[in-house]
C-alpha cells in the first residue's frame, strides 16, 4: 500500500438549483481514503452520502474543490472522459441491483467487458471466475427474474468486479435484502477488500452493515461529523 491516499477529496462542494432554491448536499468536504480500505458512509437521508458516492464514482461532478481517485483528478475530466474512466476504474453496486432484465446473469456480468478489447474466450474466463467468486456458477443462464434478491445482488457484484476495477462503490447494497442475504453480501465485500485489494466506499443506513467496513464516517447536512 503506497503512502498517498487512493481517494483524495479537498474542499469539495456540490450544489444544484431546485426551482428558485439552491440545494447544497455537500459543503467544503475533505476526505482521504487509503488504497484497499473498506469505508462505510452513514448518515440520515439527505445528508449527502449518495452525492459523495456519485462524485467518487465519476457519476457526478463537484461544483468546487478537487477530487482525486488513484492518479486521476476527476474534476478536470469532461463527461465523455468520465464515462471512459468509469468503464475501467469503477464498479458500481446499487441497492436495487439494476440488472438488465432481458439478459442472463452471464450476459449482465459480461457488459463491462464489452467495453474492453478482450476476446470472447478471455471474457468467458473472467465471467466464470467472477461467478465462481460470488458463488453463482450454477446460475449463469438464469435471468434476473429467476433469481432471489440476494442472488441478484451477487450477480450485480460480479458485474462490478469482472473488469477488475480498483474502486467499488456500493449504494445501500444490503438495503433490500433479508438479514441472511445481507450478511453474505457484506462478507463478500469484505473479502473483495481484504483478499483482492479493492477500495470500497459503501453508503448504508444499517449499523450492522457498517460494522463490516474498516472505517465508518458519518455525514450530516453535507459535512463529515465524525
Amino acid at each position, binding site marked *: 500500500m503506497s503512502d498517498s491516499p487512493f481517494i483524495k477529496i479537498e474542499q469539495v462542494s456540490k450544489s444544484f438549483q431546485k426551482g428558485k432554491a439552491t440545494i447544497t448536499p455537500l459543503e467544503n468536504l475533505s476526505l482521504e481514503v487509503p488504497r484497499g480500505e473498506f469505508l462505510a458512509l452513514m448518515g440520515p437521508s439527505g445528508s449527502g452520502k*449518495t452525492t459523495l458516492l456519485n462524485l467518487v464514482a465519476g457519476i457526478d461532478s463537484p461544483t468546487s474543490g478537487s477530487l482525486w481517485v488513484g492518479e486521476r483528478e476527476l474534476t478536470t475530466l469532461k463527461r465523455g472522459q468520465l*464515462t*471512459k474512466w*468509469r468503464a475501467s476504474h469503477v464498479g458500481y453496486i446499487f441497492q436495487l441491483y*439494476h440488472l438488465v432484465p*432481458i439478459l442472463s446473469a452471464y450476459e449482465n456480468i459480461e*457488459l463491462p467487458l*464489452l467495453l474492453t478489447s478482450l476476446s470472447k474466450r478471455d471474457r468467458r474466463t473472467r465471467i466464470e471466475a467472477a461467478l465462481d467468486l460470488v458463488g453463482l456458477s450454477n446460475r449463469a443462464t438464469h435471468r434476473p427474474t429467476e433469481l432471489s434478491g440476494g442472488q441478484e445482488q451477487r450477480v450485480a457484484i460480479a458485474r462490478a468486479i469482472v473488469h477488475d476495477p480498483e474502486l467499488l462503490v456500493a449504494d445501500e447494497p444490503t438495503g433490500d435484502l433479508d438479514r441472511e442475504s445481507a450478511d453474505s453480501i457484506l462478507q463478500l465485500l469484505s473479502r473483495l477488500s481484504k483478499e483482492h485489494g479493492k477500495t470500497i466506499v459503501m453508503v448504508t443506513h444499517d449499523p450492522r452493515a457498517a460494522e463490516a467496513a474498516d472505517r465508518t464516517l458519518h455525514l450530516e447536512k453535507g459535512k463529515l461529523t465524525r
Partner: protein
Amino acid sequence: MLPFTYAVRNLFRDPSRLLQTVGGAGLVVFLLMTAAAFNEGMSSVLSGSGSPKNVILLGTGSEESLERSEVHLEAEDIAATSVKGIEQKLGRAAVSGEITYQAPVETESGVKEQAILRGVLEDALLVHRAVELETGNFPGPGQVMVGRLAHRKLGVAEEELATGRSIRFGDATLTVSGIFAAPGTVLESEIWFDRNDLATLTQRDTLSAVYLRLDQGKWEDVNVFTLQRNDLELTAIREDRYYEKLAAFYQPIQVMTWLTAGLVAAGALFGGLNTLYAAFASRIRELATLQSIGFTRVAIFLSLVQESLLATLTGTLLALLVGYFWIDGTAVPFSIGTFHLDLSPAVILTGVAVGILLGIIGILPPVWRTLSPALPKALRSQ
C-alpha cells in the same frame, strides 16, 4: 457498442407494444407507398398518353377541354392537304378527325356508368400508335370497340364488355366488335364508336378535334396553318403538352392524396411514437445503469436506433407484402381514364426510406427523454 442481441431482445419485452410499433410503422409506410403509387400511376398515364409527334387541332377557346371543343368537319381534309410534314402511310395522311364525348352507357346487366366515348374512323390508328387491337375488329356502324380497362372505368366485370356483348347508349344498342390495348395511356379506358354513329347519337355535326401525326413537320407549321386559316377558328396544341396541362389540372388531387395519406399516417405515427416513448421511458434507470458501467450515450443511442429500425423495418416489410398482394396492379379509374397502382422501384424506395426515417427520427423524442436527465437523477428513477 452494446451487443445486437440487446436490441433484438428489447423488442420482445412487451409483445403488445411491439405489435403497436410494428403496426403503426407498417400503416404509415403502406399509406405513403399507396399515395406514391397513386400519384406515380396517374402522372405516368397522363404523361404516357400524349405523343410529341401528335398535334391536336381544337376549337379556339376550348384548349382546356376536348369535350367542349367544336371543329368544322371540313377542317380534317383541309389540314390533311395544307399542313406540310404530316406522316404518310400507304398513301394516307395520318390525320384523324374525332368526336370525344362523356356520357353514361348501360351494360347488359343494367349497370349505367359514365364513360369516355370516342367517335373515330380507321385513320385513328395512324395517329394513335399505342392502340393495338387485341381481339375482334375495328368498329363499323352499330358497333363499338372497347379499351381493355373500360370495364374498370364502368365498374363491371371484364366479361360484360367482351367481344359479342352489347352496350346501350341513348336509344341505341351497340355490339362490342373488339378489344384494344393502348398500354400506359388513358385511351385504354375508352369506348370507341364509329364516328358517324356517335355524331348521330349525340346529334353533332362537328368534330371535337383533329389529330395530326407529324413526320418532318413541326408544331410551328401547324400553328402557322391555324393562323392562315383563321376562318376555321382552330388552335394547335402538341398532344404531350395537352396532357401536361391535364396533369397540372389533376395536381390538386395528387396533393390531396399526399395530404390525406400524410394526415392518417401522422395519426399512426403519433400512436407508434407514443408506444416507443412509453417503452423507452420505462427504461430510464436501466439505460442510466449502462452509462454508469461505461457505455457512452452515443453507444446507447445507436442500440436504441437498431431496436427502433428493427421494428419499423419489420413494419415496412409487412407493408410491402400487403402492398404486393393487395394494391400492386390495381386499376384505379379517374375522370378521363384508368391507371395502375404499381409497386415500382421508386414506390418501394419511398416505403423503405419512410421506414428508415421513422426508425431514426421517430426515436429522437423518446431518446431525448431517456438520455438527457443527469445520470444521478436517472439512476434514481423508477
